[in-house]
């Protein structure tokens, strides 16, 4: 399943509707669905927040291959951002020192089994691989 969305926060509802339909067609419920939503929402909102600012398109591709999910988000006008290189969030710090920034990418890495990243000619593609629970 694939969909092209405008790079703007108002398109998030369409993304989550697409995810719901993908899960329904593939019989995915519970933690599998929550993980898919979390991954897609995080990658898409990051693309909007840190993207070029122009009203470009984001390509979302969702694929189930037997017991593994492949979820990819492609931004066609983006600086390089490899989530695998993002600094670790210090989750053991006391409340006073905690900040929400970076938590989404931190969790994305925890939830994914494998992450691939490509960047060339300002096209940035993040692919998440996740075995079904």
């Amino acid at each position, binding site marked *: 399943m694939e969909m092209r969305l405008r790079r703007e926060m108002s398109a998030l509802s369409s993304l989550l509707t697409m995810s719901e339909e993908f899960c329904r067609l593939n019989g995915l419920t519970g933690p599998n669905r929550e993980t898919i939503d979390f991954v897609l*929402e995080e990658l898409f909102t990051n693309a909007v927040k840190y993207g070029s600012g122009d009203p470009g398109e984001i390509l979302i591709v969702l694929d189930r291959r037997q017991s593994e999910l492949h979820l990819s988000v492609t931004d066609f006008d983006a600086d390089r951002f490899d989530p695998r290189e993002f600094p670790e969030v210090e*989750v053991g710090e006391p409340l*006073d020192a905690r900040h929400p920034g970076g938590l989404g990418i931190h969790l994305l890495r925890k939830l994914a089994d494998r992450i691939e990243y490509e960047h060339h000619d300002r096209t940035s593609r993040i692919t998440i691989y996740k075995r079904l629970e």
Partner: protein
Amino acid sequence: MFEIETGPDGEILLSGRLDATQVEKAREVLLALDESRTVDFSKLEYIASAGLGVLLATQKMLGSKGCSIRLVNLNNHIRDVLHFSGFDQIFEIG
């Protein structure tokens, strides 16, 4: 769809899916708290990182007043997400 309301004993009841499109609803209620409360997750299916940010901001705000929120009845996915975030060290989770 996401709903947030106050229960009969003053507990905060969350239901549905707390994604980034719904997070302002949660922010309005939680950041207006001025005393310790229990937040009941029993009908909450999903929370995005934007929702985690509101929980953290609420705990920091209340902490400055010597108060806190306590999180109860989390499903396994949300419990895992909070654990990976280290929130089980800065929230009481029942």
